[in-house]
């Protein structure tokens, strides 16, 4: 009989242990969490068996917080404190949000991201989203029976830097380690492509509750390459509900309703929209608190007519994405439909007409994004099996640039560049003796700064005083695989440098996040120190495991002395991690990284050589 192996306490377990990773679809209307179990992606349901968690958060007067179905129940009775569709506010100011006037919230206007006044104080959309993520995290941990190593969180492909950063901040508040921000249509393409072994050019038409994306992908031998993406980050099923709601008000000739009645009618509008997917007509019969009776019938045709312009609005990004990819509609092999809103028959008709083929509706449009995200999370966590090896090459949706003279934009990174991408641009001084320069980073396609989204402003000081036009300032943009930007500027002759991680003007400052983390932790009865300790221990452990795996596979790259140094460093870091001084662990981690840096570099070189090995030498011209 074989003996069971038990690792010594504190020692790392087998290198191929399964890490718990999930995919989270943080949607406008509903959110889901999924994982890969025994090789199959599945959505994780709540105790009642429901996969979808309504993205609704209610702040109760008694200090409690409800999320999901429970919160939804209070949407008409406690509308001000029950936040729906908060995704629309992520990384946005009040002026950016459509239909504010019919929303029952108490907005706090000011610079930067919009805030909501609730019975529990002023809340940022990031905090509200974090509540949804906390519930999903707890659901996943209960279901999987352990702490998560990380999550892939999906975002609309057309989300800009501020919206992506806000999503990442929300995860941080919820204690979720983000393995990657993944574009929703790309996640759907992964789920569809892997399930159907698809090859060729596909379009993903993703109409969610509040966002629209269209991505064109080329699938070939396990590579998912996004050729182009376009969309509208403020167009979704909600807008169809809103149009129907306005139409109900017109037809029933109602005076401006109270906030509670407005919410009630919005609910009715949504129900009617859903009913029209399967029925030819939907009756709306409701008595308002004002005593007025609304009793009308909406036909499928009425609904299609009143929302025709919205459907047309989705086709403009479709055309643009095709043009950027250099393709005609008939060159697309299949159109994958994603998002609950694509159930509307007139949307499916419009897409079929445009592409000249019936769209693919054989997957669950509500779940496909979460399932794809789970597959990617499983791969990113290192649970990838050799046979299901694939590669995602995604792009940046919107160009990045800098403001130049006259309020014009100089584009530095063009849209649809494959990530990660870096670009540099040189600038010079305008006046004699100029010693400082201000930079304004913007995102968007328009020529004028005023028409683009302002991401950040920063200054480079200490430029040597020279005649105008003599200094050479090089500004470098780096966009990582999450689509997030960092910018640095350097004066080339003196080497003076300024580096900024772009903290979007519409984001939260580090101080604010720290404050939120603190209050959240106080709330949970935890404390800052133990959290910091746990984080450092996890990172330390991660480094030790990575080094041990590397030694096992590539130990031959080291001589005896180098090997000894790394072995000693591992022992030292392990001892530190067993202690309780988080600062000492942090210092130890930095020292460890320096010791193993050369080894890691050699391994990277080796893997690149092996990528090209097996290639015929006579193909090379030497």
């Amino acid at each position, binding site marked *: 009989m074989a003996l069971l192996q038990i690792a010594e306490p504190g020692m790392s377990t087998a290198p191929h242990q399964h*890490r718990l990773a999930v995919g989270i679809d943080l949607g406008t209307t509903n959110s889901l969490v999924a994982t890969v179990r025994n090789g199959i992606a599945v959505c994780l349901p709540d105790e009642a068996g429901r996969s979808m968690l309504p993205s609704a958060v209610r702040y109760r007067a008694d200090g409690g917080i409800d999320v999901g179905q429970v919160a939804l129940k209070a949407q008409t009775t406690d509308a001000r404190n029950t936040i729906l569709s908060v995704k629309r506010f992520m990384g946005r100011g009040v002026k950016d949000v459509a239909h504010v006037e019919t929303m029952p919230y108490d907005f706090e206007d000011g610079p930067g991201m919009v805030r909501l006044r609730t019975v529990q104080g002023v809340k940022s959309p990031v905090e509200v989203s974090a509540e949804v993520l906390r519930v999903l995290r707890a659901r996943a941990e209960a279901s999987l029976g352990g702490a998560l*190593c*990380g999550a892939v969180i999906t975002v609309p492909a057309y989300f800009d830097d501020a919206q992506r950063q806000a999503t990442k901040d929300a995860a941080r508040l919820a204690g979720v380690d983000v*393995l*990657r921000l993944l574009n929703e249509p790309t996640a759907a393409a992964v789920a569809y492509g892997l399930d159907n072994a698809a090859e060729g050019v596909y379009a993903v038409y993703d109409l969610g509750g509040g966002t629209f994306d269209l991505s064109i992908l080329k699938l070939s*031998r396990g*590579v998912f390459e996004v050729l182009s993406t376009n969309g509208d980050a403020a167009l979704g099923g909600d807008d169809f509900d809103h149009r129907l709601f306005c139409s109900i008000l017109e037809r029933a000739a109602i005076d401006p309703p109270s906030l509670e009645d407005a919410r009630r009618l919005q609910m009715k509008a949504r129900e009617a929209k859903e009913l029209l997917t399967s029925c030819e007509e939907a009756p709306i019969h409701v008595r308002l608190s004002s005593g007025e009776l609304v009793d009308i019938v909406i036909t499928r045709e009425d609904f299609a007519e009143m929302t025709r312009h919205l459907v047309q609005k989705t086709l*403009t990004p479709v055309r643009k994405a095709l043009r950027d990819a250099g393709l005609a509609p008939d060159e697309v092999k299949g159109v994958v439909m994603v998002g609950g809103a694509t159930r509307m028959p007139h949307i499916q008709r419009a897409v079929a007409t445009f592409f000249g083929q019936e769209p693919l509706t054989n997957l669950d449009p509500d779940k496909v994004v979460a399932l794809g995200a789970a597959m*990617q999370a499983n*791969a*990113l*966590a*290192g649970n990838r099996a050799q046979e299901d*090896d694939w*590669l*995602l*090459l995604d792009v940046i949706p919107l160009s990045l640039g800098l403001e130049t003279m006259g309020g014009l934009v100089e584009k530095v990174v063009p849209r649809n*560049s*494959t*990530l*990660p*991408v*870096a670009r540099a641009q040189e600038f010079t001084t305008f006046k004699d003796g100029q010693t400082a320069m201000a930079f304004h980073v913007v995102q968007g396609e328009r020529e004028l700064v005023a028409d683009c989204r302002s991401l950040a402003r920063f200054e480079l000081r200490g430029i040597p005083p020279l005649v105008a036009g003599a200094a050479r300032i090089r500004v470098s943009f*780096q966009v*990582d*695989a999450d689509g997030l930007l960092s910018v640095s500027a350097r004066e080339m002759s003196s080497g003076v440098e300024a580096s900024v991680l772009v903290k979007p003007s519409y984001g939260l400052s580090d101080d604010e996040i720290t404050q939120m983390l603190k209050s959240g932790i106080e709330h949970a009865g935890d404390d800052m120190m133990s959290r910091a300790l746990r984080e450092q221990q996890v*990172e330390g452990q*991660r*480094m030790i495991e*990575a080094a041990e795996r590397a030694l096992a596979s590539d130990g031959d790259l080291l001589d005896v002395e180098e090997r000894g140094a790394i072995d000693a460093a591992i022992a030292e870091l392990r001892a530190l991690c067993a202690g309780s001084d988080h600062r000492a662990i942090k210092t130890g*981690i930095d020292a460890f*990284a320096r010791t*193993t*840096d050369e080894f*890691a*570099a*050699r391994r*990277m*070189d080796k*893997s*690149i050589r*092996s*990528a*090209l090995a097996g*290639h015929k030498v006579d*193909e*090379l*011209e030497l």
Partner: protein
Amino acid sequence: MSIDLTQDYFSLFELPRAYAVDDRALEAAWHRLQSQVHPDRYAHLPDADKRRSMQWATRVNEGFRTLQKPLARAQYLLVLAGVDAGVETNTAMSAEFLMEQMEWREAVEEARAAGEVGELEKLHTRLLQHAREVRAALERQLDIDHDYAQAADTVRRLMFIEKLQHEIDDALLALEG
């Protein structure tokens, strides 16, 4: 950091150093390299590995873009040959070329002002044909004659053509939008 900056993109992608490029071999090498260095392969590893992977993946993407686009590839070959394409300094283009430039520009401007989508599309097609001819000349100059001075001149022509192509695209976009 071990990124070998002396290694040129052609060697990185194991392709012959020439203007004529086998698109499929280039794409296959890009995928092969990215499957080794892409940040998705390092997401569960320590930050130092993530950083290195991002730098490598960035360089591989930049290499792919440079070799994939005809103009960027030609400019890069000139850089490797130590020839200054004179993009910013050399404005001494032939009178004949300058005339040609003006004619193209006027035609685009007129069509744009008149809002003639059909005319713009015709210009677009004509310009594409013209670009093909210029690229054929460039291939001859770079790969057969090794006449880099001539090639530098052709590169400047091609830059002008691409710029004009963008202007036509923008005009079409404005008229449609």
